[in-house]
């Protein structure tokens, strides 16, 4: 019994990590109907940047704080210099461009860092855990990660619903042409949105690197988990994405509990299952 409760707790916490992976993806798709196929690789890039800084002796939290704005700028630049040139109805160009970017990132990281497994160390927090009684313990880092996911979503909620910029985002998402009539430059909006997504990737990258070993090739798998979380949760809803992440996390840990080889497959099966019975996801936005 304890085994099952523990599995569920771990699953929920893993869901927080996946929600963190998925939030940036969800924001980008919500505002500009664009999917960044290099999303996972961007997180891995962030993890490597933090690794480089922390190996140089910088405290990991400070390193993360330094990497975050760098990632924002990278995302802003990618959108305004490259992706903004492919705005329009055709889905192929942004898909193929981000796909090419994914391949370039993976191989560039491979050239720079080789294929060795790496890990971000947070000192004592690496293995610290909190006892919840009844024989259940949760790792501190996974717990912080889960809370971070919630904090990020709350911050985005605040941004979207309480600020002028947020209104501009939502207006652009609704009707980009009419938003221009309000004085909103949709190119700048898209660039800021991509910058925000990259910023979240930076945070996600830290937890990705601290939780388990990473190497240049693990990006695409993370993209898939993020994507599954977004679809299960329902398009257009950030809290839905959190729920979706938890569903994927739970599916994976329960699958692993039954047979360790089934972990990832269980996640895919859950995704495909949700797609069959509730194609719009668990918490889709009413208007779409």
């Amino acid at each position: 019994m304890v085994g099952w409760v523990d599995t569920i707790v771990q699953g929920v916490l893993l869901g927080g990590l996946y929600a963190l992976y998925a939030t940036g993806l969800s924001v980008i798709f919500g505002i500009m109907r664009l999917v960044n196929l290099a999303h996972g690789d961007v997180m891995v890039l962030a993890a490597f940047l933090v690794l480089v800084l922390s190996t140089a002796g910088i405290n990991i939290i400070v390193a993360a704080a330094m990497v975050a704005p760098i990632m924002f700028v990278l995302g802003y630049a990618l959108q305004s210099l490259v992706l903004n040139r492919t705005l329009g109805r055709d889905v192929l160009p942004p898909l193929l461009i981000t796909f090419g970017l994914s391949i370039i990132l993976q191989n560039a990281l491979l050239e720079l860092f080789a294929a060795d497994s790496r890990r971000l160390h947070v000192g004592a927090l690496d293995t610290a855990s909190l006892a919840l009684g009844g024989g259940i313990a949760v790792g501190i880092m996974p717990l912080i990660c889960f809370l971070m996911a919630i904090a990020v979503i709350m911050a985005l909620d605040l941004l979207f619903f309480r600020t002028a910029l947020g209104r501009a985002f939502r207006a652009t998402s609704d009707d980009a042409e009419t938003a221009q009539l309000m004085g909103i430059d949709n190119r700048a909006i898209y660039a800021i949105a991509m910058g925000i997504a990259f910023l979240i990737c930076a945070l996600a990258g830290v937890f990705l690197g601290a939780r388990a070993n990473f190497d240049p090739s693990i990006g695409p798998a993370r993209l898939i988990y993020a994507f599954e979380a977004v679809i299960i949760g329902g398009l257009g809803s950030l809290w839905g994405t959190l729920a979706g992440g938890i569903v994927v996390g739970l599916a994976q840990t329960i699958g692993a509990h039954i047979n360790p080889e089934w972990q990832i497959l269980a996640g895919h099966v859950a995704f495909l299952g949700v797609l069959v019975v509730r194609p719009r996801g668990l918490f889709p936005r009413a208007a779409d």
Partner: protein
Amino acid sequence: MEAGIDGSAAPSPAPRFAVTTTTRLSSVGAIAAVGLVGALVVLPAFADRRLIQDLFFVLTMLVLAQSWNLLAGYAGLLSVGQQAFVGLGGYALFALTIMAGLDPAVAVVLSGVIAGIVAVPTAFIVFRLQGAYFAIGTWVVAETMRLVLAQVKQLGGGTGTSLPPAVTGAMVGLDTVRRLFDVRGSAARDVIAYWMALTLAVLTLGSIYALLRSRRGLALAAIRDSELAAESCGVNAFRTKFFVYVMTAILSGSTGALIYLQKARISPDAAFSLLDWTADVIVIVVIGGIGTLEGPILGVLMFYALQTYFAATATWYLMLLGGVAIALMLFAPRGLWGLLSERFDVQVFALRRTLLTSTVLDEEAGARTSEKP
């Protein structure tokens, strides 16, 4: 003009129209194509083994490229999961030959059919998604198949397996080829695989061409331009797209079976490789020109040249590919053939439907009658 009953002039004859697709270039192209295929058939008598193997690669990639192009360029369904059916076809071949003892040639055909059958339920799942999310959905389907097949111990599980000599030595026609071209067993196998690939390529091009010339092909073009408008004309978009999806799966599955028959060794990671069966294919189609039949042919040749020249350093080569993809999308989204055909307004495959009016039809009829003795 004769006077009508009420004294008015007879009405001019009702205008007649006919639709044609033949152009001068396409007629020339058709003759050249027959000649080319003939030459390719007898090639093994003159060429060395290396060339046959290279051509096998070119032909199989051509089939995959035309399949992906049909799905993405004509039906507007961008898939990043074609490797699902390539891998499935490969594993089906291994299963049918090793476990059911079927002749490899028969198994190749059956593998394609199996891939088509599996495509049916997966279509219902992935068609619930649109655009970029459809693409990733197809990827998840491929990943799922990879993970499931990695659990099948009889086919080697996660590390894969090889075709036993009992199978590789049992291909029909093996002895004939050995004697005919005076080559060893494995080279003979390559020749047979090459002929099968040639057959598959010709069948693929032929069937896609036939499809595009048919009413269904017209429906496809309409859907690609505007699904809503097409549906209001009575086109059933779902059924048309579904048909193309299954057809593509059959083609990819057959190709996968053929590829892994030739390799004689399979593993889940290789059979379901995104890079080999989707990424490379996409680059091929995009370089050549998406949404045209000529494009993938050009693309495959260019890709072959790229690979031969660059294969040495894997990471830099891949980064180059990625850069090429990005540059193409930004500066030449319609690929090489797109640039050529725009500049010179040419089409080798006769697909553009031209409307001939009464005057032209009359002229042609007149020219023909004047030739009669």
